[in-house]
């Protein structure tokens, strides 16, 4: 196996992951599809969940569920404690200054919409500019397109180089006069890891704030917002071993303090009269209604699981596996097109590919009969697809429970598909 050493993670000497032990924590990996073992290569869409996460949620419901924040009886206090402890775990995971900087949302999409609605509507008026990139997920495009339509703000885009990196040659001009720069930390199509700290610095020099869509980053790399220098950072639970129904916005506390509330309702107020209301303190000001309590606790357990493995070890594992996959697939399939950067050290474990002229959906369908799950489609990044000149790609993506045997299964299934449509 070609070990790659470019990466920081590899250098700090992280222990290799014991994938066999990890796999035994994921009940779904024992499922058979068409008589074949499940080869799950779609974690960039949504990861699977370990027993530990499912147990944490079931245990919560079976022993101490109650609505949080207001109850004075014992199980309600315990529910509140566990819920707020989950918040603290997430704060530690991204190295936030305080758990008050963590807002629970239903997914990262809501987190970005929160920024667009609350910060955006307060701070952006007609003619103001926001700088995004051509590789953004729809979650970091549509909220700004909606604001552009409503407010007449200008959207600019950082274009891409031929090998799927951000083209920063023009950055000075692009960033000049913008109020916000919003960039995905890692492309969910190309795997490209973007130079977030550098971009954040450029944003700040231009007097802009920096928003990071870290949906594909926090699950896979050690994340230190102090070092990245972001102002807003969003991520989503279901891609990091956590349950569906929960996401997070981290934001600088002073920004949260100044921002008006987003959704209105219970929990987010300190007083309500028939003619007005007073919002609550951060972060609760942004959490209207009953929050995803069990989901937060489940996500907390996912954080424990990931930090138990060590985020550096997770990253090293994925670099190695991606490196193996890039070699193996290219060797086995000379007609295979692989999008995105060639160097495994500058990309994540996400591989978009095209096999001859087989349509991505046909490819994915045929792979499925071999138990191999890959995603086919535009991956919610249609502008990027247009840039690539395709309507869809097939995408394989890796996580902690994948190993070389999964890559081998993918490669074999690709051969079968070629035969089928040949």
């Amino acid at each position, binding site marked *: 196996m070609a070990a790659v050493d470019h990466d920081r993670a590899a250098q700090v000497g992280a222990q290799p992951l014991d994938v066999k032990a990890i796999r035994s924590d994921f009940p779904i990996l024992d499922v058979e599809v068409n008589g074949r073992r499940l080869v799950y290569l779609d974690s960039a869409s949504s990861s699977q969940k370990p027993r530990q996460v499912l147990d944490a949620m079931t245990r919560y419901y079976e022993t101490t569920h109650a609505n949080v924040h207001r109850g004075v009886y014992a199980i309600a206090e315990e529910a509140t404690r566990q819920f707020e402890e989950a918040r603290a775990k997430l704060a530690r995971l991204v190295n936030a200054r305080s758990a008050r900087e963590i807002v629970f949302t239903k997914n990262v999409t809501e987190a970005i919409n929160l920024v667009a609605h609350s910060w955006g509507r307060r701070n952006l008026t007609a003619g103001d500019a926001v700088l995004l990139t051509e590789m953004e997920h729809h979650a970091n495009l549509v909220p700004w397109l909606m604001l552009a339509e409503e407010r007449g703000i200008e959207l600019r885009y950082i274009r891409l180089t031929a090998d799927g990196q951000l083209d920063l040659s023009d950055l000075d001009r692009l960033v000049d006069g913008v109020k916000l720069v919003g960039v995905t930390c890692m492309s969910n199509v190309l795997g490209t890891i973007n130079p977030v700290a550098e971009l954040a610095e450029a944003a700040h020099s231009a007097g802009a704030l920096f928003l990071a869509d870290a949906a594909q980053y926090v699950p896979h790399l050690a994340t230190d917002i102090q070092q990245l220098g972001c102002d807003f950072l969003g991520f989503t639970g279901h891609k990091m071993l956590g349950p569906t129904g929960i996401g997070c916005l981290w934001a600088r506390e002073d920004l949260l303090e100044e921002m008006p509330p987003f959704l209105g309702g219970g929990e987010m107020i300190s007083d309500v009269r028939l003619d007005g209301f007073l919002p609550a303190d951060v972060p609760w000001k942004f959490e209207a209604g009953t929050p995803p309590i069990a989901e937060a606790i489940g996500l907390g357990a996912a954080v424990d699981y990931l930090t138990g493995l060590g985020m550096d070890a997770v990253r090293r594992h994925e670099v190695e596996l991606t490196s193996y996959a890039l070699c193996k697939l290219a060797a086995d399939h000379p007609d295979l097109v692989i999008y995105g950067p060639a160097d495994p050290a500058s990309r994540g474990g996400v591989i978009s590919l095209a096999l001859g002229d087989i349509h991505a959906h046909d490819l994915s*369908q045929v792979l499925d009969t071999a138990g191999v799950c890959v995603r086919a489609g535009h991956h919610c990044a249609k502008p990027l697809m247009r840039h690539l000149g395709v*309507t869809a790609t097939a995408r394989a993506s890796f996580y902690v429970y994948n190993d070389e045997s999964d890559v081998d299964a993918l490669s074999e299934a690709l051969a079968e598909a070629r035969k089928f*449509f040949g």
Partner: protein
Amino acid sequence: MPGLEDLYREIILDHYRNPRNRGELECPPAHRYEGFNPLCGDEIVLYLDVRDEKVVDLKIAGQGCSISQSSASMMSSAVKGKTLDEARALLRAFKAMMSIHEARLDAEDRELGANGQGADGEEAPPMGDLEALQGVVKFPVRIKCATLAWNTLAQGLDGANGSAGPS
């Protein structure tokens, strides 16, 4: 678990590899219609030449997966030369064949009793090769592939209705 052979029948792969009526027609006299599958982003372009209530010619352009391409190819063969009424009957019959799942949102409530027959109980026209697409209903995500060309045809037939003859 339905197998691959339920979806990719030999006849489907044949139409995929050798698409019939591929190309463009001059507009006018033909009309151009676009169909779009939002699930995947694929697009079909239908050129339809209708004269005297009859589909005298049609061509298919655009791109998509094997199911959408072969369905378009089969549709073009089945509809070419047919009267508008015959084409409409075929469209209804095909949509009925697919509706078991496509109309799932409705079929689960009391409104719609999708049963593979035209709403007015008319007799379904013979489907020929099109029967091969029946297996698609076992793969719900792919139903929109199979119906893409037909939904585009529906636009065309409505258009022909509106203008009531060649333009």
